């Protein structure tokens, strides 16, 4: 039976990963992923999990070791943050091209410079085009559930792609939350053993990671793209079965009081809960505000997104990363491009908020939503706004 516990989210995420009976973990310490790294090491050291824990000398080597381990048929896990992910950047598209179902827990943190260890999404955004499935957890329970779901989805023969699970650093990883930790039996029922299609073993030798001439490279890119797009079917199925087994339901795009909302605010990750309080307060005053939360970042859930924002006049996109000198925050830029051809699309307002751990309060969200209300009648100028910047 699942047990209800009060636990730090990073610890709970590590517990969830251990419940997945991983074979190999390769983790390099970086704040704020450290508690995941440490707790996994403890679990292995106590003999509660039979796994090899590789104490790599860098993140570049942690993701590389995961490639080797996954290629040899092991269930492999890594975790990192910020600079660590940037150091892995080179290897990420190779993992997806090689169809290695590595799972990564990412404690999101701002990318230097200046050095800043606190939370935003500037680490994951530059990895957008790496061909990985990318999830965002909103709270501790989601971090636990999605850690387990990730292995099942990644290793599905129809998918065989790596997954990164975004867990906001500190604001989520270091919170103690009430959550339900599934039992080993329950996880075993949900998550079948890893059955790779080919492995590195002399009994049946294969070559992995051949190089491609121009005559085949485009085709490989097309396959990578198709597989990622098609993975949504497996993701939906895995979430559906999760709901049936555990009673917690997951969707690519979550909405909160979005019905009849003229102004919608869109968040990713832990900010959703704060934003929902602001929506409650404004709704109580009769303001037609609602919330859209993007859980699935890649593959981008176009259909579900369009459905979620239907009827809204203004869509406020909260970006937690800057695309310097570009069209807006990376999420807003995507949303705008997704909506470009749609008749009756909402006006899009783009706020860059919560950068490098800057607190975003309920009051801030109310203020932002009210700016959205003003934009119902007055078409907003394009571009983006650094919310709350001191100039």
């Amino acid at each position, binding site marked *: 039976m699942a047990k209800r516990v009060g636990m730090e989210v990073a610890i709970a995420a590590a517990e969830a990963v251990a419940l997945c009976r991983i074979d190999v973990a390769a983790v390099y310490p970086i704040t704020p992923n450290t508690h995941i790294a440490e707790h996994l090491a403890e679990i292995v050291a106590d003999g509660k999990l039979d796994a090899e824990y590789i104490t790599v000398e860098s993140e570049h*080597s942690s993701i*590389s070791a995961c490639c080797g381990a996954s290629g*040899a048929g092991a269930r492999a896990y890594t975790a990192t943050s910020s600079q660590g992910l940037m150091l892995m950047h080179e290897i990420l598209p190779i993992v997806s091209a090689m169809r290695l179902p590595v799972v990564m827990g990412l404690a999101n943190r701002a990318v230097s410079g200046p050095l800043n260890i606190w939370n935003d999404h500037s680490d994951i955004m530059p990895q957008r085009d790496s061909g990985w499935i990318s999830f965002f957890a909103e709270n501790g329970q989601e971090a636990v559930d999605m850690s387990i779901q990730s292995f099942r989805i990644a290793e599905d023969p129809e998918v065989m792609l790596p997954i990164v699970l975004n867990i906001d650093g500190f604001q989520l990883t270091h919170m103690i939350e009430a959550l339900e930790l599934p039992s080993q039996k329950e996880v075993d029922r949900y998550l079948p053993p890893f059955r790779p299609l080919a492995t*590195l073993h002399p009994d049946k030798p*294969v*070559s992995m990671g051949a*190089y491609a001439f121009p005559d085949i490279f485009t085709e490989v890119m097309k396959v990578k793209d198709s597989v990622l797009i098609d993975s949504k079917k497996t993701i939906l199925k895995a979430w559906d079965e999760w709901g049936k087994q555990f009673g917690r339901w997951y969707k690519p795009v979550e909405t909160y009081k979005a019905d009849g909302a003229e102004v919608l605010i869109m968040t990713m990750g832990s900010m959703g809960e704060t934003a929902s309080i602001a929506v409650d307060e404004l709704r109580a005053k009769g303001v037609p505000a609602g919330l859209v939360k993007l859980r699935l970042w890649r593959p981008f859930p176009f259909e579900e997104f369009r459905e979620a924002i239907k009827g809204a006049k203004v869509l406020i996109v909260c970006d937690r990363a800057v695309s310097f000198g570009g069209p807006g925050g990376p999420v807003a830029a995507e949303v705008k491009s997704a909506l470009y051809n749609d008749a009756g699309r909402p006006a899009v307002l783009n706020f860059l908020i919560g950068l490098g751990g800057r607190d975003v309060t309920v009051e801030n969200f109310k203020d932002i939503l009210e700016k959205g209300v003003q934009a119902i009648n007055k078409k907003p100028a394009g571009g983006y706004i650094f919310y709350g910047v001191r100039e």
Partner: protein
Amino acid sequence: MSIVQNFDLFAHKLVDKRESFCSGHRACQGCGEVLALRHICKALGDDIVVANATGCMEIISSNYPHTAWEVPWIHVAFENAAAVGSGVEAALKVLRRKGRIPDRDVKTVAVAGDGGTVDIGLQALSGAMERGHNMTFFCLDNEAYMNTGIQRSSATPFGAATTTSPAGKVSMGQKTGKKNVPEIMVAHNVPYVATACPSYPLDLMNKVEKAKRVQGPSYIHVFSMCPTGWRSASSETIKLGRLALETGVFPLYEVENGKYRLTVEMPEKLRPVSDYLKLQGRFRHLTPADIEKVQEKVNQELKKLLHKVETSKSWLE
């Protein structure tokens, strides 16, 4: 002296005729590196998994959908062969323990060129060796970035002209000597470290077998003659490897648990380095005075090595 007359002559016939690195690859004519790799694969046998760094050997062997590898092989990137190998080794260990793969020894092998070992791959190599993975790492050293067009690495010898250390009016080519990675490996307490050269195939294969038997990390630094990059005749590859030994440029030795030992005897009176240099276009620009400097460097390095051969002791003693 071998107890069997002409042992070396006949011993080749005892070598396994099977090729796990097979023909049809795209290496240059006279490539010393691919010859070394072929011998290495013969000596390693079938029960291996190879992690290969980006570089000449990867490029010539794995043009999709072709492969020259009849043993399991993985290539991920340039600088991470040791890290990928670490993951393979960890996986083989845990999967064997859990009964998910057959219960027998399978050796993890990492292969990289000099760039992938001594420059960009040094950190991953150091990490893997320090952690003590059961893995043999081969540095196939052709003394520059040959795959990208002969740029200098920190394994390029003093005085060699490369495309990024060209000889010019105010430069005599490479200004520094070779980074001594075998010594760095010994400093990691790696129990078996050796140098080898495909011009001495039996010595090479013996070392590979020894390295394979080590339950832990081992490292072999293989001198890999490169006619393309060294501007030498492809017919003189083997001769160059022999001259490298006979001039003292690349001595063949092994280090077992810290104890240095020469494995191929060097002539009592070494040949002058000019005998080795003059066959290669990369040294063509050197003046007699420059050659003298090269000779001094070679003498100095050899002296350091011989001192270690004389004084080092096994740390197991």
